[in-house]
């Protein structure tokens, strides 16, 4: 059985760590890979075919240097090889117009970054659900 892999694209290492820890807490066997911007993410996806094979979800920050979230989202959805992988926008911004724009561009959903530990666990649970694998523990709330 392939290892389930989640790709987190975010320039903030703390944010990567917070959500990665939460996911690991819920499901330690999920493999988590990260890229600091869209450009690196696209490069990783293109050059490492084994990464692509087990990839179940892409968590995408919006505000990033070099290639931002919207640009990355468009690049992913324009490419036949990646268009089926669900992309969740994961950002601080809560602007509903921006939210709608991302959804139009093909994002699966839009999640605001957590402000509490509880929130982070709940978000992690949601991400795992999207990977179509059963959660190991019961989700809080």
């Amino acid at each position, binding site marked *: 059985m392939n290892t389930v892999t989640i790709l987190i694209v975010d320039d*903030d290492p*703390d944010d990567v760590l*917070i959500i990665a820890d939460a996911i690991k807490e819920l499901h330690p066997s999920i493999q988590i890979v990260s890229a600091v911007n869209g450009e690196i993410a696209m490069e990783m996806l293109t050059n490492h075919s084994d990464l692509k094979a087990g990839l179940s979800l892409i968590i995408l920050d919006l*505000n990033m240097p070099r290639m931002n979230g919207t640009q990355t989202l468009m690049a992913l959805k324009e490419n036949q090889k990646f268009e089926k992988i669900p992309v969740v926008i994961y950002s*601080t911004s*809560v*602007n*509903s*117009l921006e939210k*709608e724009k991302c959804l139009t561009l093909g994002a699966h959903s839009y999640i605001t*970054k*957590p*402000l*509490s*530990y*509880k929130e*982070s666990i709940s978000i992690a649970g949601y991400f795992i659900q999207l990977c179509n694998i059963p959660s190991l523990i019961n989700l809080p709330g």
Partner: protein
Amino acid sequence: MHEMAKVTLENEMDLILAHKRSMKLAEIAGLSLSAQTTFATAVSEVARNTIDGGKSGRLILNVEIDQRDKYIVACIKDEHAHNISRAGLEYAKKLVNKYNISTKGTETSIELFYYISPTFKIDIQKLDEWRLFFRNEPPISPYEELKRKNEQLQKLSEKVQKSETQFKTLTNSLPLIIFSLDLEGQLLYSNEWLIKYSGETIESLNKNRWKTFVHEDDYNTFLVLLENKIGNGKIAIRLQARLLDKANGEYLWHQLSITPYKDDNGLLQYWTGFIVDIHAQKIVEETLKDNRELKQIQTQLKESQQSQERYIEELNRSNQELQQFAFIASHDLQEPLRKLVYYSDYLINQYSSSINENGIECLTKMQNSANRMRMLIKDILIFSQIDKERINLNDVDLNMIAHHARQDFELVIDEKKAILIIGDLPVIKADERMMMQLFENIISNSLKYSKKNLYPEIHINSRVKDDCIVLSFKDNGLGFDEKYLTQMFTHFQRLHNYIEFEGTGLGLAICRKIAEMHNGKIWAESKEGEGATFYVSLPTYSNVHN
């Protein structure tokens, strides 16, 4: 032939004079007394015939010096009547050495020659002396005296007339006005130029005191000159005035100069003056002055432009800095703050067993403060981003905006069991993001200041008034005293303590700024405890606020 003296031959008195002059010339030419008498007799004989029967008779006494011989010559000219004989001539012919008779037109000329001794020296100087002698010869009789005076007067008058004509021609040919004035300022004389230029006569100018000629703005000064200064003036007067050019109906600038003329005793007799056209000079002068002023204004304009450019530059720079600050506030400040919130929560949740109650309380306070700061930063960012540079006018469906706002507040609405009733809202030209912000802020306000014992109800409606759409947001919340209205729409003005109701004090200020950006207005009506209605009026075709 050298002329020595002249005698007109008109009457008996002239005959005597002719005789005496002839005697004298013979005498000073060194002839003997008998020779003198012979010559004078010959002249008298011919002259008598002329007086008796000729017109325009005259005797001219000369000295002739040719290569060999010297003569005294009496030349008698007249217009002789043919019927009267010249009996004397026949006799005279015999008395002189040589004679010559010639006729030119009606005039007959008889020349009688008498030898001067070859030993007698005659030179130019001597001839001049003789001539002078005859000119100064004392009158032989009162008659001759009178005659001579008359002749002199005649000559003088001829000379004066000639020089006056010359003078007039001269003054008339000058391109300036020349005139003289008496002590009452009356014109005595003027050249043609004045008459031609003014279209007036000396008489008419004297009569109207130049009033029709001098420009009304300059006339008072001119009149003072004419009536006061001239009477007792001692020095030359100068004046610039506009004078009417009759031919063109134009007033041209002239310079008047008049100078007093005094007699030998220093008594003022009259004034002489001239007037020169200085219009071109005056115009050049004025143009130069205008030019100077223009240049000065230009320089000032340039300077103010430069300083304005500097201000604009400065403004752009500070605007840019503000935008940079906004970015830093949005991203770089918000991010660490979010971490602060998250990690303090993490501590409270994951390490609660190792921290005592006091510690937990401190952490909670820290978390609350960080949260408040986060909201503040968010609102400042929003406030600073509402400016006309960023406004982007499009057709905005306000129904869509209202429904989006409802979605954004879903959690709170559910939690408070609030009801949001959205009426039929129009599509307007506006900035979509700003409209969204406006709706969110007003709805958020109503939800926040709701009554604890009542489910919040918010009605959003619109109506058309004149050229405006008036939106109303009516709630059943706490309401407020209307005396706080002005305060409410000013930034950082809060009616409540933040412990009671969280908030930054920027929400309504942002709404006001958005409304104003769209050339609209925001106001509210309320009574404390009876809910509030917020109104936003926006022009149907909103223009960017400049």
